[in-house]
C-alpha cells in the first residue's frame, strides 16, 4: 500500500522539473530506437532472416569482441565530430546538415597542409594539418551561416548544396592538380607519409581520433551549458525575438557557432586522413557527415549525448560486414536500419509533452 502511494507520487508530483525533463529526453529516443529495431526486424524477416539471430549477430559485430569494439570506436570517432557540426548550430535553432562537406574540405586542406610541410617534424605536420582542417571546415560552415544571417538563405539547403560542391572539389583535385600519378585505379593524392600518421592509442588499438572526439564533445558541452557564449546562443536559439530584445549580437553568435561546428567536422576530416587513409581520395566522402546528422538528432543536439550515440551508430556500421558474411544480407542493410532509426527519431519529436508522467503540473 505504502509502495503504491509512493510510486504514484513519484509519477505525478514529486519528480523535480529537471529530472522529469531529463528523463523525457532519454526515454523518448530510446523508444524511437526500439521501434526502429522492431521495424527493421520485420524488414529482414521478409528476406527470411530471423530477427533474433540478426540482432545477436549485430551485437557480436559491434560490441561482442575486442576487435569489434576497435572497429566500432574507429567509426565512432568521426561520427562524434561530425555530429557536433549539427549539434552546435542547433543551439541557435539552425538545422545544419553540412558535416559531410566540412569533413571533406577539412580532410582535403589537411592533406594539402601535410603535403606542403612534408619533411618537417611530424608534430609540426600534424598540428598544421589539424589547424588547416579545422579552419577549412569552420569557414565552410560559417559561410552558410553568413548566407543565412546576411542574405536570409535557408542554412539547411545551403549546407546540403555545399556538400555536393565540397565533394566535387575533392574529386576535381584528386583527379587533377593534387593527383599522385602512381594512383591508377583509385585517383588519390600523394601520401602524407607514414611518419606523419597520428597512430593508435597504446593498448586499445583505436586511433587517437576517438579521444579528439570525446574532448571536442566535452568542450562543446561546457561551452553550450556553462559559458556566457553558450547561454547567449541558447537564448537566440530558443527565441530570436527575445534575444534581440535583450540586445544580443545574433549575427556574431550565428557565425561563431557555425564556425565551431565546421571546425569539428573539419577535424574529423583531418583525423580520417592522418589516422586512417593517409591520402585524400573519394573514400573521404564515406558518409560520416550524413550519419553525424543522425547522431546529433538522436542525441537531441546535446554534445555530451553525441558520444554514446556515436558509439551506438558506429557499432551498427561496424556490424555491416558480419551481416554480409553470416546472414548473406547486403552490406547496405545497415543503411536501411540507419534510415529507419532517423525517421523514427524525427517522428518521435511529436511525442514530447504527451506523456503525463514527464509533465510537471502547470501552475
Amino acid at each position, binding site marked *: 500500500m505504502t509502495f503504491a502511494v509512493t510510486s504514484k507520487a513519484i509519477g505525478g508530483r514529486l519528480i*523535480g*522539473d*529537471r529530472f522529469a*525533463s531529463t528523463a523525457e529526453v532519454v526515454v523518448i529516443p530510446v523508444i524511437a530506437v526500439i521501434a526502429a529495431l522492431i521495424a527493421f526486424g520485420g524488414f529482414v524477416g521478409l528476406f527470411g532472416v530471423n530477427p533474433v539471430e540478426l540482432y545477436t549477430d549485430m551485437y557480436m559485430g559491434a560490441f561482442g569482441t575486442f576487435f569489434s569494439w576497435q572497429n566500432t570506436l574507429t567509426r565512432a570517432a568521426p561520427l562524434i565530430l561530425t555530429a557536433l557540426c549539427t549539434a552546435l548550430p542547433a543551439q541557435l535553432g539552425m538545422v545544419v546538415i553540412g558535416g559531410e562537406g566540412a569533413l571533406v574540405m577539412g580532410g582535403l586542406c589537411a592533406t594539402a597542409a601535410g603535403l606542403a610541410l612534408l619533411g618537417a617534424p611530424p608534430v609540426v605536420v600534424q598540428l598544421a594539418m589539424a589547424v588547416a582542417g579545422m579552419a577549412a571546415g569552420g569557414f565552410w560552415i560559417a559561410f552558410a551561416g553568413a548566407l543565412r544571417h546576411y542574405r536570409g538563405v535557408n542554412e539547411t539547403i545551403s549546407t546540403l548544396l555545399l556538400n555536393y560542391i565540397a565533394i566535387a572539389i575533392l574529386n576535381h583535385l584528386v583527379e587533377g592538380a593534387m593527383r599522385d600519378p602512381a594512383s591508377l585505379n583509385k585517383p588519390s593524392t600523394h601520401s602524407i607519409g607514414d611518419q606523419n600518421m597520428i597512430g593508435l592509442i597504446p593498448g586499445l588499438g583505436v586511433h587517437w581520433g576517438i579521444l579528439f572526439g570525446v574532448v571536442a564533445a566535452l568542450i562543446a558541452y561546457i561551452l553550450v551549458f*556553462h*559559458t*556566457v*557564449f553558450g*547561454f*547567449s546562443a*541558447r*537564448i537566440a536559439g*530558443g*527565441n530570436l*525575438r*527575445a534575444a*534581440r*530584445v*535583450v*540586445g*544580443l*549580437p545574433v549575427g556574431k553568435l550565428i557565425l561563431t557557432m557555425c564556425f565551431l561546428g565546421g571546425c569539428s567536422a573539419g577535424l574529423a576530416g583531418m583525423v580520417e586522413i592522418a589516422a586512417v587513409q593517409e591520402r585524400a581520395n573519394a573514400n573521404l566522402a564515406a558518409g560520416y557527415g550524413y550519419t553525424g546528422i543522425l547522431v546529433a538528432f538522436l542525441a537531441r543536439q546535446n554534445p555530451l549525448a553525441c558520444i554514446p550515440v556515436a558509439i551506438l551508430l558506429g557499432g551498427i556500421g561496424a556490424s555491416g560486414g558480419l551481416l554480409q558474411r553470416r546472414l548473406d544480407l547486403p552490406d547496405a542493410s545497415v543503411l536501411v536500419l540507419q534510415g529507419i532509426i532517423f525517421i523514427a527519431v524525427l517522428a518521435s519529436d511529436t511525442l514530447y509533452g504527451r506523456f503525463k508522467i514527464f509533465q*510537471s*503540473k*502547470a*501552475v
Partner: protein
Amino acid sequence: MVEVTQLARPPVAPDKTFGLEAISMTKRFGDFAALDDVSIRVAPGTIHALLGENGAGKSTLVKCIMGYYAPTGGQVIVGTAERTIDNPRDAHALGLGMVYQHFTLVPAMTVTENLVLARDTLPPVFDWAKERAALNEFLDRMPFRVPLDAKVSAISAGERQKCEILKQLYLQRKFLILDEPTSVLTPQEADEVLGMLRGMVVAGELTILMITHKFREVLAFADEVSILRRGRLAGKGRVKELTPDAMARAMIGAEELAQAPARAGAFGAARLDIQGLTALDDAGQVAVNNVTLAVRAGEIVGIAGVSGNGQRQLVEVLAGQRDSEAGAVAIAGQAYRARREEMRLRKFSLLPEEPLRNACVARMSVAENLVFRKFDEAPFAGAGFWLNRGQFRDEATRKIARYGIKTRSADTKIGELSGGNVQRAVLARELSEGVEVLIAADPCFGLDFAAVAQIRAEIMDARNKGAAVLLVSSDLDEILELADRIVVMFHGALVYEAPAAQADLTAIGRHMAGH
C-alpha cells in the same frame, strides 16, 4: 442515426427572436472547473452583458451554449424548450449565432462572397447576379449597409465588424452571442455598431448576449448583466440598478489589488528622442511613417490607436527587433541602436506585448529567463565567461518572492506559467534595477486584474522615479489612466497630441479613425 439528428432540430429556423436560459452549466477540464454551476437567463428582446476578468469563464460559458464544448453538466433552454446542442451546427439550426472577437472573414474576397459563403449549404454553381439581388434586398431591411463589392481587405475594422454581424443576420440568426465585439473598434465605431444593434433589439428582431469588459458599453447599451468570477456567477441584475463600482467589486472579489502610487515629480529634460523614424512591416509596406517624438524624464507618453497602425513596428524598432529605414533614435542625447551595451548604459527596459513570444524563451527555466539582461556580468558570469548557476538561483529566489511570481520552482520552464506570471517575471527582470527609459507595449493585454494593477503600479512607480516611459496600448482606458501626454497613431504617423489633462475623447476617437 441521420433521422434522429434531424428530428432534434426544428424544421425551419425561427422567424422571431427568443430568449435563452443556461441552467447550472458546469465545465471541468480535468480537476479544474472552468465553469461551476452557472445559471443565466437572457430575456427575449434584450441585450444581456456577460462581464468578467480574463479566465473567469465567459468564453467557456458561451462555447458550451454554442456546442463547441460538451458541458460537464447543465441544460440550455432555447425559447421555451430544452435543447441538446452537440455542435455549432445544431446551434445554428436553432437560430443561435456567434460573432468572434477576431474576424472570420476572408480578406482576399469581396463582402458579397464572404456573406454567401457563410451559408451551411452552397449550390455547386453560383448564380452571382441572383445572390447579389437577394443580398441587396436583404440589406434594404437592415439598419446599416456595407459595400458589397469591396474586398474585405480594403474596408475598415468597423465595416468588417458590421459584415460579421450582417453575416449572422443574413443567416437568419435571431439570437446573437458577441465576444468582445468592440475590441478592434474606435469608440465612435463601437457606439455606432452597438447603437444599431440596440435598435434591432428594441424593435424585437434580435436578442443579444454580449461578452465585454468595458463598463461604458454595459451602461450605455445593456439591459441586464451577469458577472462571472473564477468560473462562478458572482453577480447579476438590471444595469439601471447597478453602479460601475458594484460591478467591478463583483468581478474582482475580495482580491487585494496593488495600489498605483500617485503621480509625483516634475518632468525633466527630453530623454528618449525619436527623429523622423520610418520602418517597414513584414510585407515591405511603410508601417511607421516619419515619426518624431520626444519623451521627457518622469513622463509617460501614451500612444493610442487602433491596433495595426504601425505601433507594433515602432516598438520593434525601439526593441531592436526590426531595422529602421530612416530616422534616428537617441537616448539622453546619445545615438541608440538597440545594442546590448547601449541598453545597459542607458538603463533601457521593455515590457512587450505577448511577453512569452517577445521577451522569454519558453523552454528555459524561470531562473534563466530572469537573468537575460545581466547573465554576462558579475556576479553571474565569473571571469566574464563562466556561468555561476548558484547566483542564478539566488537571484531567482529573490525576484520570485518580491514580485509574487507564482511558479512551482525556479527551475520550472517559463512556458508553463500563466500569462500573468510570465509578465510578472518580465517585470521583475526589466524593472527591478533602476530604469531610465521604459517602453511598454500593451503590457496588460490578456491579464487578470491583480496582474494588471501590479503592472500599472510598477509603471507609475518607474515614472515617479524619473524614467521616461513610452506606453503603446490598444486599450484607450489604460492610456487615459497612466499617460501624462497622449498621442494618436494612424497609418504609421502621429496625427494628434494633447496633454492627458486636456485630452478630448471625441477628438482622440476621430483621429484613431483617421478623420
